[in-house]
């Protein structure tokens, strides 16, 4: 089996990192389900992860992913809504305190650039 044959995206007729590996360069760098079956079956031990990082840098970040990343840099949390503790309490779950902007900045300041 080849990487394109085990990829759920290419199986659906889509363009993915697996098809990009087969020299069909286009807009598939972000269409990866992160299931990593391709890495396991590749008989040539191609650095698929490294290739994906290179193609993603070339293609740029999709808007929805950029928004989530901005949230991580601002508050260390993926989602925009952080008012979840009331619902957690209704399930009997303990409140969660987020790290907070100042401490996230200590971790991530200056890391906003590319990979």
């Amino acid at each position: 089996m080849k990487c394109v044959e085990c990829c759920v995206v290419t199986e659906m007729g889509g363009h993915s990192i697996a098809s990009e590996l087969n020299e069909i360069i286009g807009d598939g760098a972000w269409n990866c389900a992160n299931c990593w079956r391709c890495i396991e079956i590749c008989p040539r031990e191609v650095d698929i992860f490294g290739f994906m990082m290179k193609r993603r840098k070339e293609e740029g970040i999709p808007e929805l992913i950029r928004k989530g990343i901005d949230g991580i840099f601002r508050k260390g949390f993926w989602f925009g809504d952080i008012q979840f503790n009331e619902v957690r309490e209704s399930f009997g779950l303990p409140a969660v305190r987020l790290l907070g902007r100042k401490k996230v900045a200590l971790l991530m300041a200056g890391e906003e650039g590319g990979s």
Partner: protein
Amino acid sequence: MERMILYPGCLVLSRFHEYEVASRRILKKLGIEVLDMEDFCCCGSSLVPGVRKGWINLPAYSLARAERVGMDIITLCGSCTNTFLRANLLLGREPDLLKRVNTRLEKMGLRYTGNTTVRHILEILVDAVDQIRESVVNPLSFAVALSHPCQIMRPSEIVGKRNPLNFQAMREIVTALGAEVVDYLAEQDCCGSTILLSDKAMALEVGRRKLNSAIEAGAAVVCVCCGNCLLLLDRYQGQMVLKNGGKRMPLISLPQLIGLACGFPQDEMGVFHQ
């Protein structure tokens, strides 16, 4: 009683409370005292694939917090698990990287030496499968299709698993609960959840195909053990056309399923909320 830190991840702690409640309840039943991560921070999984440099500072922070209290981490999501394991591997291999990360962590009064073990809840549950089997009071009488958490299985270079293409931990546990595990064509396919942000139509198509495959095989319920699987297959299911006579395909997390078989009240397992 063993003590471990529970790291639910952004997705589970804010969206999938039933999964978290059941996980805590089952871990307690297995003799594991769960403590919470103070000052929670994203694991950095979305930054890993070449998006931003410095992604490793995020998992390193949580690993360092756990190391400071001498406890290992339990995860509920495949992405978080994969990211923590990748970070641990790199920090162990590259002393200069560890030094750079520690320069950041020291500003927060933390330091990491690489001694925090991270385990996804499925690994803990499968290690306790005999204890789970002995605790079953209501053997399950319905057919269950499994959706395996890809990112705790692969890449084997990172997660170190055997059988990366055919990981059977969920099957072993669900069988121990008395349920019939249904084989279906798309069982080993990823649910497609992580494609949601780059190509939503494609993600829905991948999820639809997986659920229809389980329906065609006669499954009454799909069992998952990852927040990402829950996100696409449960929350986005309404946007898929299923071959299920207009009915929803019920999704349930593995800890909830174990709870039902072990006689925990349905409302305590969050089943009534779904």
